[in-house]
């Protein structure tokens, strides 16, 4: 199942964010691992050709339906539950559209997004109740790509629509199984361009502890943690905070014997969303960050909050690492997986770091 490592290949495992092993369900992922994979394909391989781009159309349309359904059903639920319920009540002329779209999106197969349907979706999206629901997206389990697709509806429904790279990067589809990709970050032809092999294990649903040791020989583990989800609950267990789940998972991975000497790269991902959220939702809503003290509104606050989160992860790393493991390489990277330039720079740094540790400097 795992290939043997040859001397000029570097194997990296992309960590996963949460697993539902005890919950019987599926982990909702969404930490950005697959986006990283897509970026690698764009940056270091041949990118997506037209056929591949077109293969994403159904996914993108599905995301649109899923988004509007979540918003519609969410608004209905909030209007019954919330004390301030009137703002969540969908206006009368849109209610019929809402029911129709919700029904369509509940089917197994989605119809292609055509102009009439788009018109309906747009009308519903602009409904004040829907907008109000959108602003509490964290509660209703709204995917992060929601706003992006809603704002590009017309383009998505064009008859000759071919998804752009950005569309593909935003498209959300749950990974199944283990995905593997092979690339060279320094660029082919350049001397010393090592071959990297990256595994995304996010989709593996079986009990983690049974197969994790198969990755014992890897050079590094990349753990993706979406720092923007400090106020979100798990998809499959709405009582559990996603960040707490991430914390437990990271702790578990660090303590695995098979990774005693493995380098750890922690990607604190979705910084762009974190940046916007921190102005509205205090970090302290997450139990792990309850001792956070804000300093001043604005850009300073973002940096301060980020440093706080980073320190918490650092603390966790050193607490979970026995003294004999403290010497393994541990680096934290601030990432926004959607930003191609940033991902490229990050991998350049990773390449430099791995080269240094291989040379034993």
């Amino acid at each position, binding site marked *: 199942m795992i290939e043997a490592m040859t001397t000029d290949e570097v194997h990296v495992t992309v960590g996963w964010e949460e697993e539902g092993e005890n919950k019987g369900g599926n982990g909702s992922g969404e930490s950005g691992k697959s986006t990283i994979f897509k970026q690698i394909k764009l940056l270091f391989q041949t990118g997506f050709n037209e056929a591949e781009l077109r293969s994403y159309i159904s996914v993108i349309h599905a995301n649109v339906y899923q988004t509007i359904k979540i918003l519609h059903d969410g608004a209905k639920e909030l209007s019954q539950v919330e004390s301030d319920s009137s703002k969540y009540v969908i206006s009368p002329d849109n209610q019929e559209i809402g029911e129709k779209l919700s029904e369509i999106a509940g089917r197994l197969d989605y119809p292609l997004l055509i102009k009439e349907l788009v018109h309906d979706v747009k009308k519903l999206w602009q409904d004040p109740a829907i907008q109000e629901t959108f602003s509490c997206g964290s509660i209703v389990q709204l995917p992060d790509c929601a706003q992006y697709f809603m704002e590009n509806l017309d383009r998505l429904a064009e008859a000759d629509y071919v998804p752009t790279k950005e569309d593909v990067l935003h498209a959300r589809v749950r990974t199944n199984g283990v995905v593997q990709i092979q690339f060279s970050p320094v660029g082919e032809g350049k001397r010393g361009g090592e071959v990297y092999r990256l595994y995304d294990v996010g989709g593996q649903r079986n009990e983690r502890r049974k197969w994790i040791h198969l990755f014992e020989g890897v050079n590094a583990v990349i753990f993706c943690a979406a720092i923007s989800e400090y106020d979100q609950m798990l998809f499959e267990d709405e009582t559990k905070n996603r960040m707490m789940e991430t914390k437990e998972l990271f702790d578990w991975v660090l303590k695995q014997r098979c990774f005693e000497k493995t380098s750890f790269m922690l990607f604190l991902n979705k910084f762009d969303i974190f940046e916007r959220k921190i102005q509205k939702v205090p970090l302290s809503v997450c139990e792990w960050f309850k001792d956070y003290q804000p300093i001043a509104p604005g850009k300073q606050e973002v940096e301060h909050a980020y440093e706080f989160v980073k320190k918490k992860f*650092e603390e966790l790393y050193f607490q979970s690492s026995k003294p004999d493991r403290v010497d393994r390489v541990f680096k934290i990277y601030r990432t926004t997986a959607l930003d191609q330039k940033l991902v490229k720079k990050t991998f350049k740094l990773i390449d430099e770091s791995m080269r240094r540790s291989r040379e034993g400097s």
Partner: protein
Amino acid sequence: MPQYQELPCGGQELDIDTALKDGILGGAPELGDATAGDGGKQPVELRKMMDELDAAGDGGGDEAVPAVFICPISLEPMVDPVTLCTGQTYESANISRWLALGHRTCPTTMQELWDVTPIPNTTLRQLIAAWFSRRYTRFKKRSADFHGRAAELVHGLRGTAVPKRQPLKGQARVAALRELRSLATNHQSVTKAIAEAGGVALLTSLLGPFTSHAVGSEAVAILVSGVSLDADAKAALMQPAKVSLLVDMLNEGAVDTKINCVRLIRILMDEKGFRPETVASLSLLVGVMRLVRDKNHPDGVAAGLELLSSICAVHRPARCLIVSIGAVPQLVELLLELPTECVEPALDILDALAIVPEGRIALKDCPRTIPNAVRLLMRVSEACTQRALSMLWVVCRMAPEESAPAALDAGLGAKLLLVIQSGCGPELKQQASELLKLCTLNCTSTVFISKCKLTKTIQ
């Protein structure tokens, strides 16, 4: 270039022919002022030139000042040479002082002076002035070159060169930084030129979350080479993203990079607006401890200990962090292997850590604390003895039943008696006797004597 002949007595004789050719003796027009016969003006200018050349430590490759130009009394080049009746020449001020003290002999030949009148040696004065004048113009030209080259490099990196070009990137940038670093470390005066060309802001801007170590290590090396960092620059360097890079390089760079990062952090810590939480970073502390444990590089050990010591002094919560990464046993184990000058800083740190409860517990739990501390008593310095004693005091007080016998086994008794009988300060002796009392509470005198291996006389 004047040719010199080695004299059998070890001096050098100026070859007149080549000196003539090179214009020392007034052949070349450039020496205009220096050879003018204006006695009053010359010494001041000449003194200025001499001082400047001296201060610049002007290169090792140059020829030394000719022996005949040196005053035998002060061993400094003469500005106003005067000759005595014995034919020996001295600096006027120096020989005047000698004669004023009542001497009537020639300092070098010891002959009695039949005539104490000093004769101004104009020939020699002109030769000295000319020689220094040439030396000075050459020095100025060379310095200007270094300064010019440094400024050129800075502008190249900034993209502000004339004619306008893109700022250097990639390998070219690393090469330029490397050359700049070499200039800055070899020629102190260049740091001023770097600052004037806007180098400090450039270097600061180069440090960020995506800086490669190749670029970062050169930039930091230049920043600690003596370039003056104003308050703005230091404030910029204290930004978390830049500090993160320093911490990274501290953990993964080559040894001199690590040392430079330590030095830069130390410089920032001295600045007024420094926020102590910046150094409360586990990665930083782990990196510094790694440096301290690297026995192959004593420079790094010293630098690391100094930084740790400052951190302990500046930020109390950092002490708990330092203890939490296991620094106490690591430092204790190192104590006997450290170079002598590092023992006191290491003990200082342990002393500071012992103030927090976790630190005290760590000291007690470490099996080598007692034996190593006992070994250090009366071994390095009084200050070290005092700190080692206080460490023992902490441990013994926390758990007297186990610690006291262990301490006595390690030879504490004899050492304490030594302290009490030594020339150490009274508080130290007092502490020693109290510790002795504590440790011997449950000891019978025979056991005590045998443990101390006391000789009959001291008994």
